[in-house]
């Protein structure tokens, strides 16, 4: 239909209807298919055209080209049918050129006798569209934000359906987004069995009730929601500690639209925390232990200090700040009294105290210990000799603390003094003893000398005896001979001569006289020999070391003591060749004499004495040996053990000093030699003296 045909009667909306329509708030447009018959204010506003402009327009002119056709069709249908038509989305171009999307609904309006009119009601969808679009955009934006967030995140809607599951979350949980999106199975990412997540609880406002059970004590409110730390064994290789947060999402009206859950793998941090905690625990334990130790040590130290056998005092200047029991004992004080004292009280004079401090200062200043001994005074007046060591202690305040270790050395001093005196006494006694020993040795020498003298005297007496006698006889012979001679010279008568001849015992005389002279000569030479032997034996001329012939020495010794020996024993000599031996010959002869005399004494009745000599090498050195063997009574082992002891003798009291062998032993020792003993009761005894040919080795 076109507008021209309608000219006959211009179409108009009935006035009543028009008034009603004008009051409707929604944009309305009435048309008969041609021009716009009526458009209310809302429509005018919507389209941006005035009523007049609209009246001049076709009813669909305002639609964009793309939607006009559909609109026209729709309009036609509306005019021709009574059915309720569906709404139609139309894009409108406003007067300003903006495109708005409208939801248009068309209805036929017809009076009973009137023309068919089309009522077009539009709903501006633009805002809605816009909002929708915005929402979509927002949604997309949010999606992108969530997706790109490196923090694993997911979003649940109010139905607990997963709407967002970002890549980080997939990585964490191992669940790709498509497996959970749109489902109520967010738990799959975290648990093996359906378990409410924090997000679920937040959404359902069940956090306070069920949260602790799920999350433990870590559950707490955050600025925007709730957070907790849970250990999820399902994640990672051995399970992870996950810091979970959940915050409600609200729409523009403030209504909850969903919940966003975020997670962080805090395993490392947790582990570190645990480590730290453990460390701290350990440290605390160590500290506790150390403290305990320290305390113990402190107690020990205290106990030690208190019970130490040395006096321990700490002073600060003249003030005594610490002391132990021993100090009190040293100074004869009760501990209570000690507290009343000051440092100088314990010195003999204040001057001494000052001197000590002055002496100590340099050492203490260097941090060294100061050692000193001095006289100190007890408060009761008693004086002590005290040894002290002082150390600088820690400084609390400006007066340095000095630690003193004290020991009462009075006793020690006294003991030392006594010791010195004793030592002196001992020295004196020792000197006296040495002297006495010397005297004893002298007397032993004297005794043996006496014995020697007796023997020698006897040996000399015989020759002297008969020489003396013979001299007397000689005198008488000579007198008689002289008388005869004189008578002959005188020319005495023959009978007188005969008488004198008879008186002189001439025949006997002539025979006897030469014998007398021979015998006397022999006697004197024997005396000479004995004296020489004595000289050789004693070697008075040789007190020094010299090279001697031991065979000669042995022989002369034998002669000297022959008197002791010749009645008791047959003498056998087995001398070997001996080199000169470096020795004190006189002393060695003394040894030989001792052995020979002992051997003679050991023989009961009659026996044999054998003397042997020889050389032998021992330990690379040449030794001369001299042996005296007897067929005497012999000695049992217990006697052999003791023979070299001074004063040991088997002879009855008065016979022998018992020093002979001990003297011999020391003489041989002096020569660097030794004495061998071989004896058996009943068999006899053999002594062998070894002497180094070269003399004793320098010690």
């Amino acid at each position, binding site marked *: 239909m076109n507008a021209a045909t309608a000219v006959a009667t211009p179409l108009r909306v009935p006035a009543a209807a028009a008034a009603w329509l004008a009051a409707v708030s929604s944009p309305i447009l009435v048309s008969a298919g041609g021009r716009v018959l009526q458009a209310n204010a809302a429509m005018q506003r919507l389209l941006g055209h005035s009523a007049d402009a609209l009246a001049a327009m076709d009813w669909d002119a305002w639609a964009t080209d793309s939607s006009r056709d559909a609109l026209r069709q729709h309009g036609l249908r509306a005019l021709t049918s009574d059915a309720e038509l569906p709404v139609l989305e139309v894009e409108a171009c406003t007067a300003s050129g903006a495109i708005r999307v409208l939801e248009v609904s068309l209805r036929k309006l017809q009076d009973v006798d009137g023309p068919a009119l089309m009522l077009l009601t539009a709903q501006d969808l633009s805002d809605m569209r816009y909002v929708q679009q915005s929402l979509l955009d927002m949604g997309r934006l949010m999606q992108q934000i969530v997706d790109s967030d490196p923090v694993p995140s997911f979003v649940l809607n109010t139905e607990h359906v997963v709407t967002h599951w970002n890549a980080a979350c997939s990585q964490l949980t191992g669940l790709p987004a498509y497996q959970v999106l749109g489902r109520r199975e967010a738990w799959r990412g975290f648990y093996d069995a359906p378990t409410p997540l924090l997000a679920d609880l937040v959404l359902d406002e069940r956090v306070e009730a069920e949260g602790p059970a799920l999350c433990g004590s870590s559950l707490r409110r955050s600025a925007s929601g709730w957070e907790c730390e849970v250990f999820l064994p399902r994640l990672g290789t051995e399970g992870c500690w996950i810091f979970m947060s959940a915050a409600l999402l609200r729409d523009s009206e403030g209504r909850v639209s969903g919940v966003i859950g975020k997670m962080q793998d805090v395993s490392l941090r947790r582990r570190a925390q645990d480590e730290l905690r453990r460390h701290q625990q350990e440290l605390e334990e160590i500290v506790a232990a150390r403290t305990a130790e320290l305390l113990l040590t402190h107690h020990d130290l205290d106990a030690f200090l208190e019970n130490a056998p040395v006096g321990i005092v700490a002073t600060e200047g003249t003030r005594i700040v610490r002391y132990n029991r021993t100090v009190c004992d040293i100074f004869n004080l009760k501990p209570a009294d000690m507290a009343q004292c000051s440092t100088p009280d314990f010195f003999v004079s204040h001057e001494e105290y000052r001197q000590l401090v002055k002496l100590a200062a340099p050492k203490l200043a260097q941090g060294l210990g100061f050692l000193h001994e001095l006289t100190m005074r007890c408060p009761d007046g008693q004086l002590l000799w005290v040894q002290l060591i002082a150390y600088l202690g820690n400084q609390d305040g400006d007066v340095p603390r000095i630690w003193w270790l004290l020991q009462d050395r009075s006793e020690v001093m006294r003991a030392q003094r006594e010791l010195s005196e004793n030592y002196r006494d001992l020295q004196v006694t020792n000197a006296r003893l040495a002297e006495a020993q010397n005297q004893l040795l002298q007397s032993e020498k004297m005794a043996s000398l006496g014995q020697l003298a007796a023997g020698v005297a006897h040996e000399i007496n015989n020759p002297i005896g008969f020489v*003396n006698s013979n001299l007397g006889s000689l005198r008488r012979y000579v007198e008689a001979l002289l008388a005869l001679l004189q008578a002959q010279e005188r020319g005495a008568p023959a009978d007188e001569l005969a008488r004198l001849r008879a008186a002189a015992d001439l025949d006997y005389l002539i025979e006897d006289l030469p014998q007398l002279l021979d*015998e006397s000569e022999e*006697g004197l030479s024997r005396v000479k020999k004995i004296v020489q032997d004595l000289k050789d034996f004693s070697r008075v001329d040789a007190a020094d070391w010299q090279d001697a012939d031991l065979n000669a020495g042995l022989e002369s010794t034998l002669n000297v003591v022959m008197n002791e020996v010749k009645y008791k024993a047959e003498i056998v000599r087995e001398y070997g060749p001996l080199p000169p031996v470096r020795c004190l010959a006189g002393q060695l002869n003394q040894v030989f004499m001792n052995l020979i005399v002992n051997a003679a004494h050991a023989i009961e009745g009659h026996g044999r004495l054998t003397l042997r000599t020889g050389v032998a090498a021992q330990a690379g050195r040449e030794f001369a040996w001299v042996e005296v063997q007897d067929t005497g009574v012999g000695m049992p082992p217990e006697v052999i053990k003791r023979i070299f002891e001074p004063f040991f003798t088997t002879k009855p009291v008065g016979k022998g000093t018992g020093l002979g062998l001990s003297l011999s032993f020391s003489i041989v020792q002096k020569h660097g030699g030794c004495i061998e003993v071989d004896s058996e009761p009943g068999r006899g005894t053999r002594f062998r003296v070894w002497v180094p040919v070269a003399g004793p080795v320098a010690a």
Partner: protein
Amino acid sequence: MNALRLLLVDDEPHILAALSRQLRQLLRGDAVELRIEQAADPREALRLLRERPYALLISDYRMPGLSGVELLREARRLQPHCTRILLSGQVDRDGLAGAINEAAVHRFMSKPWRDDELAREVRAGLAEHERLRREAETLDQVAAEAGRLSPQDRELRRLERLEPGITRVVRDNDGAVLMDLDA
């Protein structure tokens, strides 16, 4: 009268020679005839003492084999009337005391001796011997007269004094008489 025998015992031959010499010189003038005999070995001296009577015995103290004391003791037993003189160069006082006491030595002389001392002692010794002999004879006579001593015994004793050992006869197993007696 028979000569008086003197026995000198000393292990030193020169002593024996000197003694003999002296005694011969000193006592030549005396009325008595002396026979001086020597023994260097005391065992030899014992043998002699068993065989002949001696008026005087001079012995040394210390000798090898037999000591002077033992010799003198034996001599006393064998010939109680033989005077015993000890001549010694020893200074051992205890030994000497023993000798004097045990052997009842009549006189003691030390070596070296003096001539006049020797002469004096020997003379005294001989006189003593004479006295003892006469005393013994007198006793025997008295005993015989009292009937205590038979004439045979008296004669035996007299013979024994003259010749010691003569009254003793030793026979061997066959009954033969042994002439030589060893100690």
